[in-house]
């Protein structure tokens, strides 16, 4: 774990010194239930992401406690019971945007695969994200839409709410990356 953390830090430092695009205010949202009376959904507007434009390496970091719910009680349960954000404050993704070439990005959206390791609650899982990249005024935008299983990250859901919370959580990211922050 320590070695992986060191790798992660070295990776981020390397990215900082390379030609980089990044954001401190990326939007990450999820929906964790079916259409019910009160849908379980939240958004995090302070996700951090850095992309090394020379090779497509990408690192994403978000603070779990920064997810905002419409209902305060849901937010409390999310942090204290399910995600244990005081023990596991961060979720990360470290990987590579396959076949990424900065010069090929245009104002029309193009599909990419982002392959890497997603870490939630300290559990690492190899994950492939399907995303779209599009040129913007100051850089490019990266949008992904993918699903994860709660069981993959050791998220225990009590029986009493099991029919309200999906086993599969749909996650969307929307990051507008700009050059050299």
């Amino acid at each position: 774990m320590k070695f992986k953390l060191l790798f992660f830090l070295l990776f981020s430092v390397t990215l900082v010194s390379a030609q980089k695009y990044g954001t401190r205010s990326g939007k990450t949202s999820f929906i964790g239930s079916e259409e019910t009376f009160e849908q379980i959904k939240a958004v995090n507007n302070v996700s951090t992401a850095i992309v090394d434009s020379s090779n497509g390496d990408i690192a994403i970091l978000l603070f779990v406690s920064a997810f905002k719910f419409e209902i305060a009680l849901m937010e409390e349960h999310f942090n204290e019971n399910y995600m244990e954000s005081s023990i596991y404050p961060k979720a990360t993704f470290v990987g590579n945007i396959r076949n990424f070439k900065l010069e090929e990005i245009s104002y029309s959206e193009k599909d990419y695969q982002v392959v890497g390791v997603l870490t939630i609650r300290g559990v690492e899982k190899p994950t492939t994200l399907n995303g779209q990249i599009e040129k913007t005024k100051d850089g490019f935008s990266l949008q992904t839409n993918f699903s994860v299983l709660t069981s993959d990250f050791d998220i225990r859901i009590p029986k009493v709410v099991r029919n309200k919370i999906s086993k599969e959580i749909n996650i969307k990211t929307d990051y507008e990356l700009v050059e050299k922050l």
Partner: protein
Amino acid sequence: MNLLKNYKWTLLIISVFLGSLFLLIEYAYQKEVPISEKEAVFTGNVSGFVNDSIVENSVIVLKAVVSSIKAKEIVLENSISIQYDNSENKNFKAVNLGDLITVKGIYLGYDDLFEEYKLINCILLNDE
């Protein structure tokens, strides 16, 4: 007589149930206390903040010089990034590079990617 007694009990149970339901809904839908009304656990400058062991998700008040501004992303003394809600757009729009500002916000934690501390939900208290 028995019927009247049963009726009273039924009424009491329904009242308790409705009262509990009301309290539960009130609790679940309670509005978040605005940052301005929350008590800060730390007030000071950047070096004091860095050397203090402040618990994540605490409210702090920080006085520091603006070292970078890019759209809505403001960095203080190259070590603390601050972010604010749309309701604060007007106040932060007047902030310029080099200003000594005082902000109140929630300390989220240390961002390993940008190698800086992160404050969110910030409000501007003073701009010099």
